């Protein structure tokens, strides 16, 4: 078991103190001049504790968003394109900066090229659309997902805010998306978008319940709603201790395999990945609720999907795969490795099955996964009880 590399809040605090010291130095320098004496109280105010803390928060959130959205979002898109190309016997994107080499590049710059292209495009608002809602909805959509990152820990130190009920907060922020999608679908005043939005909302609603049930089972096992606490529970050797010998300690995937399965399916549905991608099925409703979006607004609602994928993969790793626990390597690296592993499972599933129909999806969600989820909670209670009685 190795420690964490990053202390996000401590680091941000240090950066904030450093910045404010520099600014204060300049301010006081100018303030010593005859006419600029009013700057001195400003410098004093900047040096007080609440201001430094607020600025440290801002820096921490900025680092987090850059880390998740800029780094991993782009990598996820690239990785998906490359892996799918490998599955489908193609090469995938190969764009490089070198002019003489069109073939054989890694293609990582493709995302940046796409983003540049999308930013340049005109932002077209359909005549019949509700203009305000049309423009608010993508921002609403992507902000609800970014809010999740506030409470999502990447290691014991790499977390913006260690909220006691952080897991609930993550799920609550996650659950705001159906409303935004429904509004986006309605605002475009397009039949395809309307159907797509209705489908998306119906699916997300019906898959949130199994998701919550799976989470409840984990919470029962861990006895906490704090993500860091849940992960730490998974390093202890109380439940099913013999398996600790092979190095995977007490990951909840072992007592909770059913829960893992349910949660994985629910997460696939939340991301609108292929077996569940009928809200934006090209062959049925063209592109569903994002049919009228163009330019960077399309880029936002499109990239939002991968941001959700990132959060979903992180949640799976957090709840079932022991979070950042692993031998030798630092915590952050373990967690990222697990996230990419889960992401690989997502891609593998979603590109080797056809799309399911909406009624079948709702049937699976309501009739199969909810009873299974309840049974799973029962199993979790059983395990906890057995553990308390010392049966295993």
């Amino acid at each position: 078991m190795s420690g964490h590399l990053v202390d996000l809040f401590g680091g941000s605090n240090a950066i904030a103190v450093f910045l404010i010291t520099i600014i204060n130095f300049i301010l006081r320098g100018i303030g010593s001049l005859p006419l600029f004496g009013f700057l001195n109280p400003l410098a004093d105010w900047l040096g007080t504790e609440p201001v430094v803390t607020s600025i440290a928060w801002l820096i921490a959130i900025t680092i987090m968003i850059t880390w998740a959205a800029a780094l991993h979002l782009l990598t996820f898109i690239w990785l998906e394109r490359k892996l799918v190309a490998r599955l489908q016997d193609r090469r995938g994107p190969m764009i490089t900066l070198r002019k003489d080499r069109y073939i054989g590049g890694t293609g990582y710059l493709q995302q940046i090229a796409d983003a540049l292209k999308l930013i340049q495009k005109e932002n077209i608002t359909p005549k019949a659309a509700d203009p305000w809602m049309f423009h608010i909805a993508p921002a609403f959509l992507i902000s609800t997902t970014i809010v999740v990152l506030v409470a999502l820990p990447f290691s014991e130190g790499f977390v913006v805010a260690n909220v006691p009920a952080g897991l609930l907060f993550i799920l609550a922020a996650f659950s705001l998306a159906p409303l935004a999608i429904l509004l986006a679908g309605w605002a475009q005043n397009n039949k395809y978008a309307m159907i797509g939005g209705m489908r998306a909302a119906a699916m997300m609603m019906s898959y949130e319940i199994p998701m919550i049930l799976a989470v409840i089972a984990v919470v029962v096992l861990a006895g906490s709603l704090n993500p860091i606490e849940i992960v730490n529970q998974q390093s202890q050797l109380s439940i099913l201790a013999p398996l600790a010998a092979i190095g995977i300690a007490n990951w909840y995937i072992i007592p909770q395999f059913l829960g893992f399965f349910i949660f994985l399916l629910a997460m696939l549905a939340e991301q609108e990945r292929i077996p569940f991608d009928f809200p934006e099925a090209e062959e049925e409703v063209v592109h569903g609720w994002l049919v009228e979006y163009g330019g960077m607004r399309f880029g936002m609602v499109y990239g939002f999907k991968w941001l959700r994928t990132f959060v979903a993969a992180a949640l799976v790793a957090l709840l079932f795969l022991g979070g950042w626990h692993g031998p030798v390597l630092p915590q952050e690296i373990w967690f990222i490795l697990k996230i990419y592993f889960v992401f690989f499972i997502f891609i593998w599933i979603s590109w080797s099955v056809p799309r399911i129909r909406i009624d079948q999806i709702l049937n699976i969600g309501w009739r199969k996964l909810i009873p299974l989820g309840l049974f799973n909670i029962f199993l979790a209670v059983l395990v906890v009880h057995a553990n308390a009685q010392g049966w295993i």
Partner: protein
Amino acid sequence: MAEQVWINMGPQHPMTHGLWNLRVKLDGDTIVDADPEMGYLHRGVEKLCEVRNYLKPIVLMDRLCYVSSLTWAHVYCKAVENLMDIEPPPRGKYLNVIACELQRMASHGMWLAAFLADLGLLTGFLYSLRERELVLDLLQLMTGQRMNQNYPRPGGVHNDLPPGFEDEVRRVFRYLRRQYKGYKKFLEDSPTFLMRTQGVGVLRKEDAINYGVTGPNLRGSGARVDLRELDPYDVYDELDFEPVVYEEGDTYARYKVRFGEFFESMRIIEQALDRLPQGPFRIKTPKRAEGEGYARTEDPRGEALIYIIGDGSDRPYRVKIRSPIFVTLSALPMMLRGHRIADVASVTGGIDVCVGEIDK
């Protein structure tokens, strides 16, 4: 949405392979009514044939269906042969059979690709296209072209087989048999695939016959109707093959029929190569003809019929093309009614729509 809305699925809709429009009336997510609209690709082939001599429309027929062009040229040549009352030499007939069956495999390969893409399985789309390339390579070896082959002629075929063709065919078929068995397992073991295809777009046998549905779609409904067996043309009566028939009448049955025809076509081609007689592959045909003649063949999509009237000049007086999918589309509203909008892709993908031959 409580009101019933008409939705245009087409002409620029990803579901429609080609340019046609399926208007569906929706009650929520359920289809109440449907109305196919075609004609976006109408080129007036029938009219164009009237101003060309008997040889030239072969090129037009090649372009009738861009997926199975050779079979259309073949049925046109059969009709012209019937009109002129000539009999091609045996080798020409055998070569026609080989070419048509290769084209059938290529067409079904394209169908499988499009069908899987309709269901959202893009991986299967690319896999199927990859195997189709090999069949197209064989066709290219045989005819010189990958598509629009311009190969059959009234009274035979355009050219003889290239050297080494037979070995190449057997080599490719060994590979294809293994691959297609793998795909069959990959698809039929997948519960998602079965959920999307079983019980979808059910077409009962009586309805199918009454609506004039033919070909694999009819055989998927349980009718043993294969013109290669019922009304043999060329040398199909000398070859041993079994029409693939399934009873259920849903998209899954149609899928199984087409998938079985891959293997049947390979059998037919291998037999034809075994029995291929020596001799001329083409005879001379007269330039002018009078009277009428028609030929019907088993196109990859169903019964293709071309009816030609000659008035004694060197040009056909009237050419009428019966395209199987044109007629099958009339049964589409019945098949779609009561299903979800998501099933449109499954049903239309399953009946293998080719717009080029619908719109003529």
